[in-house]
């Protein structure tokens, strides 16, 4: 049992700090103390990964597995949580109301994500996903004024609830045939001969599972909620949603996909290919027409998840890991770091100028002339999202491309190339807006007084760290590549 506690040290630390934080709020509200507790929780949990690494892989009850893979994603989740906490301080400072619960919900949401990435059982998979989601509904609706956050939260609540119901139904059908709920158990039961009409039930169940997960990952055609929710949520939460929520669900899906050996179904692989191509093309095409930065990033995230799905299909074609797992983990890490950087910069720009989020493309017009450093960093982040060399986004895309060639998926690769080509247009459009001279009587960045903008040391530290990681991993990716190459599921 002792080693069981050691193997779950980081989730335990996060839970305990969440409870302490709750008691602190109950006795005496204090924004700074809550913020410090939140930061401490994330930092302690990151430190707790070290003793966990000594004893992995370790199965803790049938529900959770601590291994290198779950540790790596836990580290990414906790890092994103820490960055969000650091940014939220400046962001929430300008907003009235009770801001202490924000950190509590953030801790709980990260806990859900960590459970999700170490889930080896349908029960822990669903519970982790719900914990992540329930805390996120409240985070999205966090600002106490304005209709958009509430609208976004209700949309997310209803669609996410429906998706969970479909997911649960799918798992119930699979359980009805196979009688097991553990991922590995499902994989083993599938190797036994199964009656034909039962095959059909399993296929139906699997299709429903992927529909539910498709909603959560906002694959086309289940993507309708994404732009509205991204736009309505406060910027730090949007960043958290785009990175932790999507990343953790994809990581858990990868484990389910491989452990339960779902890749052996040709029909499933075909439909996944269709979903991936639709996401890559529709996501990028719809982003072209947007004038809101958050909506652009929302559509681009749809396309990025589409790129990621190529790795699943490669696995299905090769029937063995090959480069697929390595490519997926690298791309996911690159995407998380880059998105965090982009949303951090948006959050800093927003918290410096006004109480509401400034996310219209006209708000950043002329940013290069007012805030050259911010604008330069946003440009680097956007170039990394587009996959331009010297940034980590390029290496990630290169990885996926190589994996695709390994699996000879020419149609998918064509969609990847076309999608990336389109994406460069709308990423560069943002950069172009920033270089334009200030408009006459415009709003936002153009008329903000350079003296009134104070970048706190904290925000500076956060963005410099993220930009450094992006460029460092873009130029010297070997260390991360070697580490990820050693990860096994």
């Amino acid at each position, binding site marked *: 049992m002792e080693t069981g506690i050691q193997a779950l040290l980081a989730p335990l630390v996060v*839970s305990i700090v*969440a409870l302490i934080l*709750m008691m602190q709020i109950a006795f005496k509200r204090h924004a700074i103390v809550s913020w410090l507790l939140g930061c401490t929780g994330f930092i302690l949990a990151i430190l707790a990964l070290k003793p966990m690494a000594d004893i992995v892989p370790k199965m*803790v*009850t*049938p*529900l*959770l597995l601590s291994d290198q893979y779950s540790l790596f994603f836990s580290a990414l989740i906790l890092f994103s949580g820490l960055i969000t906490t650091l940014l939220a301080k400046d962001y929430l400072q300008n907003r009235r*109301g*009770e801001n202490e*619960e924000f950190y*509590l*919900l953030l801790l*709980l*949401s990260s*806990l*859900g994500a960590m*459970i999700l990435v170490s889930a080896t059982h349908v*029960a*822990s998979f669903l*519970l*982790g996903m*719900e*914990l992540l989601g*329930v*805390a996120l*509904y*409240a985070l999205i*609706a*966090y600002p*106490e*004024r*304005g*209709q*958009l956050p*509430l609208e976004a*939260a209700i949309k997310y609540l209803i669609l996410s609830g429906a998706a969970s119901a479909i997911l649960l139904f799918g798992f119930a059908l699979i359980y009805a045939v196979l009688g097991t709920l553990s991922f590995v158990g499902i994989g083993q039961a599938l190797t036994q001969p199964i009656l034909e009409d039962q095959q059909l039930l399993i296929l139906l169940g699997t299709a429903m599972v992927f529909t539910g997960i498709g909603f959560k990952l906002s694959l086309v055609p289940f993507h*309708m909620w994404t*732009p509205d929710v991204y*736009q309505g949520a406060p910027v730090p939460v949007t960043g958290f949603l785009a990175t932790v929520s999507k990343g953790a669900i994809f990581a858990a899906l990868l484990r389910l996909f491989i452990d339960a050996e779902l890749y052996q179904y040709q029909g499933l692989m075909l439909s996944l290919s269709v979903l991936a191509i639709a996401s890559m093309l529709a996501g990028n095409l*719809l982003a072209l*027409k*947007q*004038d*809101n930065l958050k*909506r652009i990033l929302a559509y681009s995230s749809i396309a990025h998840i589409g790129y990621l799905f190529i790795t699943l299909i490669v696995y299905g074609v090769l029937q063995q890991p090959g480069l697929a797992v390595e490519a997926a983990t690298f791309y996911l890490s690159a995407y998380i770091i880059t998105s965090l950087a982009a949303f951090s910069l948006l959050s800093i720009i927003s918290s410096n100028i006004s*109480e*509401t989020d400034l996310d*219209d493309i006209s708000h950043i017009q002329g940013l290069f002339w007012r805030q050259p450093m911010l604008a330069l960093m946003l440009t680097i982040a956007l170039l990394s999202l587009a996959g331009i060399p010297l940034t980590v986004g390029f290496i990630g895309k290169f990885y996926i491309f190589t994996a695709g060639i390994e699996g000879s998926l020419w149609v998918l690769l064509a969609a990847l190339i076309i999608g990336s080509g389109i994406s460069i247009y709308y990423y560069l459009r943002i950069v172009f807006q920033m270089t334009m001279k200030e408009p006459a009587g415009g709003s936002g960045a153009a008329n903000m007084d350079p003296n009134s903008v104070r970048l706190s040391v904290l925000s500076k530290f956060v963005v410099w760290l993220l930009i450094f990681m992006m460029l460092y991993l873009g130029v010297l990716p070997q260390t991360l590549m070697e580490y990820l190459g050693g990860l096994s599921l």
Partner: protein
Amino acid sequence: MELILFYIAAAVALFATVFALTRSNAAHALIYLIVSLLAVAVIFFLLGAPFAAALEILVYAGAIMVLFVFVIMMLNLGEEGQERERQRMHPAVWVVPALLSTILLVEMVVLLTKFDGPQTGALITAKQVGMSLYGPYVLAVEIASMLLLAGLVGAYHVGRRFRSNDSDEQSIAKPTPESREVNN
């Protein structure tokens, strides 16, 4: 015999659910929803899961639905509400749900007098459920408790939004600028 009872209960569940979905009055729909949940509880009982059946009634039909009904009825106070209440007691409204519930009651009486275990699978007692929840799946219970904590804190915070908007005139007087493109 179990098979016949199952089909009756399943038909009641389907019928009640369809009616719950098609009623325009929320209170009427809720009554049908309760009947549907009762029918599902009977099916659980037939499958050999009396504990799940009891929970279904206690938690869904009992706690959650009664809460819903109370909230909806409390929103209808005053003269107009009383009139609506009188209309609600019209026989056309309660006869069908009462009939469906009676069918379920008869089924239950038959089951209690001559039920000798489920046709397929094994009988799962409350003790077995408890043993596995607090045995191998104890972490699931812990995670579920954190889930409830998140739900509670979230509901408190979102609920606060409406309370503060009522007392805080400023927030109404000062609309936030929201430009929103309706292109998709």
